[in-house]
């Protein structure tokens, strides 16, 4: 292990420990901030597991997040909590698998549009089912799960996401994904099973997003399709990952922290101008930090780095080829 890796590891463990300790020392407000930070860290990092190396921009985050939340609403009171979480993750994985089979052949902007439509499609399907068969569109989630427990569960999931990400980067699958990001046709000609690789990464990332949705759901009591499948979540995750830099495992984290704090500051101090300021922030990020904070940092810290053209540019294949 190099000094740099050791430093990163220590920083990561330190941050997670700080998050896990908030319920013991912080107020209710600190706890809700911790939940927010952890939720977006887990979502954005899970997003970057697939979209980072491959460069496939997905706007389906909220589709899987919502599936997780809905799993809790439907079976949360009937099954033990551990099983509910497993079911949520499993459902997310399955849906992504089925959807991915038919759509991961799409590339570029077609994929972006498709994933955005997917979230909408699932929302309409759930609404249709609830209205015509369940007889009620809203569902109630009455579970005795405290805010502190949500913080701890999110901490655990975040740790798992990072662990998986690290393993993925060092695996054959990770290499294939990065090849896809560099040039999919070449990857295909090298004999890589690109469809299988994309499918697996997409489903894995979806399962983690569903898990996060399931953990956060008990905060809301009342859940309907508009709440569970709110497209704003997808966009927020995307912009956080892009600000941080999706090519690095820790990249999204660097975007999540400033943006969550910024959103909080804006909605507390400029409640009437929030949307305008949010739009300006997005523009600023796309124009000023196209490679993300991670890219900036590494440029100034003097790490050798090939030029990267796009925002969600793939990570360099040189790292962790095992």
């Amino acid at each position, binding site marked *: 292990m190099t000094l740099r890796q050791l430093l990163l590891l220590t920083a990561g463990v330190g941050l997670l420990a700080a998050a896990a300790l908030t319920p013991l020392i912080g107020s209710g*407000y600190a706890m*809700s901030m911790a939940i927010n930070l952890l939720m977006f860290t887990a979502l954005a990092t899970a997003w970057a597991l697939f979209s980072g190396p491959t460069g496939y921009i997905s706007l389906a985050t909220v589709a899987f997040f919502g599936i997780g939340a809905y799993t809790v609403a439907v079976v949360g009171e009937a099954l033990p909590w551990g099983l509910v979480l497993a079911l949520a993750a499993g459902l997310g994985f399955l849906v992504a698998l089925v959807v991915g089979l038919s759509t991961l052949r799409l590339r570029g902007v077609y994929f972006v549009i498709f994933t955005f439509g997917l979230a909408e499609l699932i929302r309409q399907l759930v*609404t249709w089912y609830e*209205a015509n068969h369940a*007889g009620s569109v*809203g569902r*109630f989630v009455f579970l005795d799960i405290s805010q502190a427990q949500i913080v701890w569960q999110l901490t655990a999931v975040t740790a798992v996401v990072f662990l998986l990400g690290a393993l993925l980067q060092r695996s054959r699958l990770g290499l294939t994904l990065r090849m896809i990001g560099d040039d999919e046709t070449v990857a295909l000609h090298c004999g890589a099973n690109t469809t299988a690789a994309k499918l697996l990464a997409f489903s894995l990332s979806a399962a983690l997003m569903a898990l996060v949705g399931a953990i956060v759901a008990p905060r809301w009591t*009342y859940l309907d399709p*508009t*709440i569970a499948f709110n497209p704003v979540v997808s966009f927020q995750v995307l912009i956080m990952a892009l600000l941080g830099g999706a090519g690095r495992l820790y990249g999204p984290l660097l975007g999540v922290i400033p943006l969550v704090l910024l959103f909080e500051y804006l909605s507390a101090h400029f409640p009437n101008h929030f949307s305008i300021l949010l739009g300006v922030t997005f523009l600023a990020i796309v124009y000023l930090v196209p490679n993300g904070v991670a890219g900036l940092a590494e440029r100034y810290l003097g790490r050798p780095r090939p030029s990267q053209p796009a925002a969600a540019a793939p990570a360099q294949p040189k790292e962790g080829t095992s």
Partner: protein
Amino acid sequence: MKLRRCSKILAVTAALAIAGLGAAHAQQPSSIRIGYAVSKTGPYAGGATTTTLPNYQLWVKEINDAGGIKVGDRRLPIEVVEYDDRSSSEEAVRAIERLINQDKVDFVLAPWGTALNLAVGPVLDRAGYPHLAVTSVSDMITQLSKRWKNAFFFGDTSANYARGVVSVLDQLRKDGKIGDTVAMVSVADQFGIELSKAAQAALDKAGFKLVYNQNYPIGTQDLQSLVNEMRRRNPDVVLAFSYPPDTIAFTDQAKALGLNPKVFYTAVGTAFPLYKQRFGDNIEGVMGTGGINPNSPAIKDYMERHQKALGKEPDRWLSPVTYASLQVLQQAIERAGTLDRQAVAKEIRSGTFDTIVGQISLQDQVYSGGWMVGQWQNGEFQAIAPLNRDGARPALVPKPAWK
């Protein structure tokens, strides 16, 4: 912005006052801090900025003009902390947590809409804040009031609203004014589904014939095919359990396509001033959710004050009730003589309050004295159900054809 600036000035004044008086007096509050987060943007903004926000502003202004709320032997002005929940549950929960933990407000006023009230319910309950939910209509409220001891529901259950509609129809049929064919559409949202389910059961029980029953996704603006289907069946009664945007769209398209039943009912939004502005004379005879008793002096006075202070009319369903809920809070604080939330909640549970909608008592945490059905009669949204309550008028049927 005005309110926020106002609250900032007040905060500075309060800070100076406390600093000037010294530490001994710092215990004594110099104002009542009241916080709320309502949807100023997003899909709920239309309802929130018609029914909820204007009444909060009116109430705060009136109290501060009068010198404040009387707590013990002092009058304390209200200092407002206001956020936008952007029509999102997560944002609403966080805003309420911020109000309670960061801004340390004395009381929190409810957000707009069933979903958001239910979302913030557990937070307020955990922190021991009284929760006066007005714009929240659900069959769950009896169950919820058992769970949250400090929550008070001023909206009614969906089943009661649906039964109110059917009671009007039943009476009209007895009087020989309508037949028994009913066509119904509903928005596929919690409110629409609950209402249409309850209405279906009540219509069946009363022996009405449901010739058409269909729901449409929330956000649908093109309802022409539904209107045409209804017109083809020529029903005596048309019911639309709709939300404000589709209430407007449905009325618009019924008018354009010449759907002229004897009874025309649209749900949320029919009572909004916007409806009157949009359809002018055509509103005559349209029924909807809510209603007021325009001859009540208290209501008349309230509508004048609302118009004068805010430059617009209130809606004629839950606007007066929202204002009444604030009167309940104010009187409970004055009777408790303290800002202690437990004491105030206890007063709300046990007392009887004089409000613009009459005497209110909340023993079982639910106010069920609201109007169920109203009808536009001579430019006013006259309450017609519950049928025999003081202030109700008989329904005018048939509704005149669209002009």
